[in-house]
């Protein structure tokens, strides 16, 4: 919504890198911003090769696979043991995950 404009469609500005980093809750140093701007621009340029394809005759699709209705029956299976659930957590306060104090309500569900 507030994404700063880009000079060229594949050229990422440093402001855009900072914006994406912020959305991803990543702390980046000034050096990293410069480096990632260049690297990510390269990635975008590479992917932009796809723009050369003529897709005029192809219907828009929601998925590359020509499949639909992959569904499962509503049969529950037991959850993992709490120990396993918390095993990889960076912080734990059993039986909960422990996270830094959250002040604002950014929940989107």
């Amino acid at each position, binding site marked *: *919504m*507030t*994404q700063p404009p880009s000079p060229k469609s594949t050229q990422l500005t440093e402001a855009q890198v900072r*914006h994406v980093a*912020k*959305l*991803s*809750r990543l702390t980046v140093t000034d050096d990293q911003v410069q480096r990632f701007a260049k690297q990510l621009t390269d990635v975008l340029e590479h992917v932009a090769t796809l723009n050369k394809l003529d897709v005029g005759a192809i219907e828009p699709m*929601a*998925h*590359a*696979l020509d*499949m*639909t*209705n*992959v*569904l*499962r*029956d*509503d*049969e*529950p*299976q*037991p*959850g*993992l043991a*709490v120990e396993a*659930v*918390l095993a990889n957590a960076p*912080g734990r*306060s059993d*039986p*909960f*995950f*422990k*996270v*830094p*104090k*959250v*002040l*604002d*309500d*950014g*929940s*989107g*569900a």
Partner: protein
Amino acid sequence: MAASQAVFADTGIKARLMVGMEVHVELSTRSKMFTSAPNVAHPDYYEAGPNTLCDPVVLGMPGVLPVINKRAVEMSMLVGLALGCEIAKQTKWDRKSYYYPDLPKNYQISQYDQPLCHDGQVDIPMDGEGTKTIRIIRAHLEEDAGKLMHEGPGGVKIDHSIVDLNRAGTPLLEIVTEPDFDSAQQAVTFGQTLRNICRSLGVSEGIMQKGHMRFEPNINVIIEKDGQTYKTPIVEIKNLNSFKALHGAIEYEYQRQIEDWLETGRVMKSGAKSTRGWDDVKMVTVLQREKEEAHDYRYFPDPDLVPVVVDDAWIERVRAELPELPLVREKRYTEQLGLNVKDARALIDEPKVCKFFEEVLSAGVEPKRAAAMLLNYGAKRANERGCAIHELGVTPGQIKEIAELAAADKIGSSAADELFGHCCDPRNQGQTAEALAEKHGLLQVSDTGALEGYVKEVLANPKNAKIVGDIQDGKDKAIGALLGQVMKLSKGQANPKLVGDMIKQQVRGS
């Protein structure tokens, strides 16, 4: 709204409230939306300990794949059909990205531009009489997030936050209406109507305290002054989980927005919407501190999930499951069965009790009688025991017997109540009501020989001479006093109607 108009009466403005609703309903499937871990919104798992309903998909582990729960799709179709929606021929799944501790994989799977249900309408009852039609924009399926808490269990102060992921991945149906409400009460009535519909469909238990339904009203005010129309900026109130909070938040915003407009003249800008929370204690809305980019969700189609295509045959199979909807049922109960609105609603509001009521009707009990027995004899005992009326243990057959015994004057009304109680006693399981009535001496004595003795005794009592004189003078009211005495002598078992006739006959000789 009379009160608020009075407040602004001297400002020369006319104000009209405009509210649209977003409602989240947790579906009570047995397993989660995209994986087979148990669903905390299903009654079997209400008491599950924190973080016990998790599997690798819920935890957002690398390499896992979501698989759609077919029943969640069908439950959503049921709600869509009940709300008069079109069911989409094709629906797809999108990722809504945001980083928050209650969302382990950093995106929520939702439906962005192809919701499962769209363009519906539903009638809500109005305060006075009649109904109002509310237009439904869409109803789409997504997954709930986990629960983030800032206090330890039991309200213990902690210097960090804690997360329980039991709720993460619960199927969540988001229903969005047009801004068709012009009072807080209408919004509340819509919420209650929707709750009743979901409960009657069996797609949600609708327990507000458990967060089964959450409301997000979008509120603004249309102000007219000196022939000009102004619209105040739209405010969305997040996550209201009670009807009281919903009502309070809308009323508060109505006042606040008018005051704000009078003070600043701020009006709506396209696309701009601010978010506020509701403080349940202070009863005010509070602006939520937010960075604008927090809403940069970067929706894109989820490559892990293929579209769902719904054909007519599937829709018709689901449509066949639709029960009689609450408002239709209420109309039938009041207009055809002759119940009053209060009784009809009391039964319909509890789908399982209502089903039991229908069974009692099928057993052959007259509807008004059946409703009265369940809502008087039944409700008070259910209340005492802390269970629902259909769980008391009394059977439709026994209720039929009690009704017949009463209709035949074999038991009086207080005896019918007592007999109902004996039928609910687990020790009396399998016995007929009549046998229990006999066992507990509840059958009325209609044996004229025995009754005549009591009547004679009472009439002969010199203390009653004046009353007898009154009766002779044609005062029917006086009979009551003697009737009471006969009932006492018979230990409450005399048939009152018979005794009354007998007194009249003996005193007046006719």
